[in-house]
Structures are given as structure tokens and as C-alpha cells.
């Protein structure tokens, strides 16, 4: 089986999700080629080449692939697909957009968000917001797979593999990039952070969300997350939403402040190593999954936590 891994990049670098999906690809087994798409990604290609287990890196730098437009990137992958048995990618907003398009063009049913490789054609995946785990066997000859990266460790570095430049087929011409508003943050990225501090509806305003969470997050070098209620109310940007329909995360430490613990939220964070809940309602469902629960008003508990972290030198 030859495997094509569509890399997720962040600027001119490989996103941590890529090395995690690589681990899943290795468990499937076979030579692995990594595909990097978009202009100005030579640095990312070099990083990918250094990941242990990569046989070759393909780089397509055509301008039409910029911003990972589904229409052009899918056309590129389909043009390469003849040589591959498996097309795999970490599950990110970019690949969730692209891979089903590839799958349909190849007449393949995609296996979304795998959390375990049972064998080369059999995988486990969560359904119903993670309340059930399905074991599925993909019967199509070619397989198209996305990987829930919280379930796999990152592949280490190894010997450098060769890098080959390739070019994209003609742009299908049905879509064009217009603009982009990207939040600039100095904090660690949500899906790869070691510690996450998430805030819910209880924060009450965008101002509070920042004022109350920021100092603690800074002390902990934590990423900031949010519940859907906090995002819908405009307290936090959309890409911070953790949950069934937002991001799946599994940090070493997840602190939920003023979040009730709806199943849709739990779906995105219950695989975290240690969960802390701070909620003033002792009946809140979040306490059912929390290793450490603190029944308290977050507006006093979080400043106290910051002071305590200062004391222990964090």
C-alpha cells in the first residue's frame, strides 16, 4: 500500500497535526509520501522531509493552491491518486473541506475522523458526539481517511527524505479566494497546546472573557478555548469553539471555567488527560467528567488561581 498524506501547514511550517496523522499512516503501513500544497512552503517541505517514516515529499507551489481552495487542491490530489492506495490527512478545517471532494471524485466513501487503526482497512471512529465508537471496514479499493489527531502521538524526526516539486492541473475555475481574517495570537495553538483554559457563557461578555481568562492562560502558557455559547454570544472567536462541531482537543490539562458540560462540549475535550471544572453549580454535568472539581464563582476563583500560580513560580 502506498500512502499519500496531505499535510496541514501553518505559515511556512508543518502543523503538529501532520506528524500525528503520519503516525496513523504508519500504522496502516506502506511507503508514505507527504503532499504540501501552496506557494512559499519550502520550509514546510523541509520539515516534513525530516519526519521519520516519510519516503518522499511532494511540493506543489502553484498560486491556484493558495489558501487550500477545495476545488483546486482536490483536482491536484485526484491527478496523483492513481499511484496511491490510501489518501489520508489530519482532520482540520482545511482537510474536512478538501478530502470529501477527493473521495467523491474517486467514487470512494471516506472514513472520517478515525481514532484507531485496527488493520489496514478497519478503523474506529466516534459517532453521536463520541457517545458511541464504531468499528468500520472500508470496502473500497482506495481509501480516503481523515485522522482525529488527539488520538495519535506525533511521529518523531528521522533521516531527511527527498523533496520533489510537482505542478497542479488546470484550475477548474469555479471558485476564487477573496479575503481572510485570521486572528493573530501569541498563544499556543488550540489543538496542540499542552494546557487549555476554556471559558463558557458564564463569562458574560467579550471583555470579561479576555480580562478574566488571559492572566491565568498567560501564566500557564495555555491556549484559550470556548464553549459554543461563548462563541455564539460573541465573547470569543469561532475558531476557539471546542466540541462536537468545533475542535477536538486532548491536552494534558483542560480547565473548564463557567461551562456546564453539555454532551456537545464534552465530545471535544473528554479525552484530555486531566480535567478541571470550575463552576458555581455543584450539579453541573461537567463535574461528572472532571478529575478535580471546584465549586466556586469563577470571578473569584480565577484571580485566586493566578495569584497561586505566581506563588509557585509559574
Amino acid at each position: 500500500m502506498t500512502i499519500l498524506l496531505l499535510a496541514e501547514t501553518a505559515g511556512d511550517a508543518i502543523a503538529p497535526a501532520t506528524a500525528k496523522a503520519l503516525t496513523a499512516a504508519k500504522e496502516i503501513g506502506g511507503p508514505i509520501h507527504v503532499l504540501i500544497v501552496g506557494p512559499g512552503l519550502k520550509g514546510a517541505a523541509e520539515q516534513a522531509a525530516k519526519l521519520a517514516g516519510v519516503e518522499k515529499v511532494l511540493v506543489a507551489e502553484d498560486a491556484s493552491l493558495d489558501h487550500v481552495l477545495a476545488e483546486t487542491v482536490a483536482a491536484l490530489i485526484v491527478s496523483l491518486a492513481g499511484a496511491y492506495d490510501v489518501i489520508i490527512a489530519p482532520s482540520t478545517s482545511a482537510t474536512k473541506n478538501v478530502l470529501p471532494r477527493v473521495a467523491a471524485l474517486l467514487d470512494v466513501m471516506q472514513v472520517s475522523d478515525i481514532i484507531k487503526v485496527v488493520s489496514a482497512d478497519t478503523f474506529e471512529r466516534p459517532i453521536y458526539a463520541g457517545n458511541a465508537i464504531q468499528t468500520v471496514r472500508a470496502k473500497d479499493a482506495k481509501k480516503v481517511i481523515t485522522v482525529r489527531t488527539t488520538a495519535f502521538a506525533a511521529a518523531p524526526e528521522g533521516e531527511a527524505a527527498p523533496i520533489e516539486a510537482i505542478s497542479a492541473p488546470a484550475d477548474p475555475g469555479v471558485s476564487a479566494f477573496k479575503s481572510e481574517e485570521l486572528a493573530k495570537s501569541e498563544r499556543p495553538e488550540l489543538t496542540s497546546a499542552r494546557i487549555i483554559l476554556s471559558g463558557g457563557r458564564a463569562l458574560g461578555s467579550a471583555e470579561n472573557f479576555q480580562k478574566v481568562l488571559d492572566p491565568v492562560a498567560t501564566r500557564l502558557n495555555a491556549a484559550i478555548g470556548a464553549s459554543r455559547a461563548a462563541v455564539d454570544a460573541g465573547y470569543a472567536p469561532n475558531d476557539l469553539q471546542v466540541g462536537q462541531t468545533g475542535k477536538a482537543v486532548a491536552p494534558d490539562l483542560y480547565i473548564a471555567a463557567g461551562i456546564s458540560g453539555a454532551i456537545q462540549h464534552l465530545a471535544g475535550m473528554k479525552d484530555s488527560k486531566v480535567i478541571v471544572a470550575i463552576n458555581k453549580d455543584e450539579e453541573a454535568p461537567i463535574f461528572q467528567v472532571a478529575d478535580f472539581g471546584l465549586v466556586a464563582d469563577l470571578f473569584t476563583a480565577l484571580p485566586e488561581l493566578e495569584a497561586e500560580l505566581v506563588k509557585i513560580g509559574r
Partner: protein
Amino acid sequence: MKILVPVKRVVDYNVKIRVKADGSGVDLANVKMSMNPFDEIAVEEALRLKEAGKATEVIVVTIGPAKADETLRTGLAMGADRGILVKTDETVEPLAVAKILAKIVAEEQPQLVIMGKQAIDDDCNQTGQMLAALLGWGQGAFASKVEMTEGAVDVTREIDGGLQTVSLKLPAVVTTDLRLNEPRYASLPNIIKAKKKEVAVKSPADYGVDISPRLEVLKTTEPAKRKAGVKVGSVVELVGKLKEAGVL
């Protein structure tokens, strides 16, 4: 311009599902079913475009068992004009759903298909992208804003890191994210009116689509359960526990 809105009947989002002990699946007997929440957002968006004079007709379509008629009626009560029920008791995977939808698109010739980004039961997040692929159309997945322009639609998409706006030539497929709009509730008179609206009943065979599954479900199990830990009495105690656990 016609808009086609595929809607799926799923277990209501408030229901905590139970996995069957024999591993054969999820117990759906006597469970409350509703329209997939993302599809309500899709219906709402289509209706707003119609109300703004940008569309002339909103058609809802569902693929599922006879009972999925209820889901269509929900869409019709919100204000959609007519429905199509593609009746089947079989499991229909996203690829097959997309193939059936592609055939319906060929018949109905909508300029826009608006659908949910994911169904909250199987969480596949595939069908819209697959439909766009089969039709060779542009796709605006995970939309938080949809704006019609001359012969095109501008879609603002929720992506990792923020928002991206793409311009798609019409016809196109849009899939909805949570922030696109807040769907309306159907009024009682509209619920009654919806009962009389036209629903065409079809079968997958009418469209010549082979729906045999490509994925074989070997078993369905419960996830590993997390057990509740301890309550701590103070922030100081919490920090102590976190240090002990080695995460600080």
C-alpha cells in the same frame, strides 16, 4: 432561482443515546428525532434569500424512512415551498446521499444547494463537499455568511484561525456552520399549512443510484468512560492536586 435544501432526520441533540449491548448499533427505538440542527440553519438561510427576493422557490429534500416525512414537514412549516422524500429503510452513506442529490439537482436545476456541514448522528461532515465534487461546482463549506452577487455567491467560511471568504460561480453548494443565522420557529398556522404542501415520494431506484454501503460497520461500542474525580475545597488545594498529577 431555485434553492435546494437537503435535510436529515436525526436523533434530537438533547437525547443521550445508548449503545446496544450486543454491539449492533445505537438504540433508536422510541427516541425523539428532529431535523439535524445544521439543516434548520440551511432552511432558514434559503428562506431569507427568498424573502429578500434573491430566490423564487425553496425545495426541501430528505433521504430516509417514511417517517422522514416529518422532517420535510418541519422544513415546509418553516416556509419551504415543496418537498421530495426519497424513501428507503436502508443505511445511506454520504457518498450515496450525494449521488441521489446530484440526480435531483439535474432534474430541478437549482442555482444553489444549501445544506448542513455535518449531521449530528454520524458526524461525517462529507455530503456537501461530495455533492459539489459530483456536480463539478464550487463549494462554500462551514459558512457563517452568504451573500449573493452577480452570477456568484460570496461565502464567508469558519476555518482554523479565523474566517475566509471565497467567491463561487453559480451554481454552487454551501454548507452551514452554527453562526450563519438563528433559525425561526414554525408558527401553528404554518405547521397546519405545511401538511397540505406538496411532497413527491421517490425511491433511490428512481434515480438509478446504487446505495449499497462501502463501509461495513463491524460493531458499535461504548467509549471508555471517564469517572468523576474529586471535589476540591479551594484553589490552593486544586493547585496542589495539579502539581501532584504532574500537569503543572
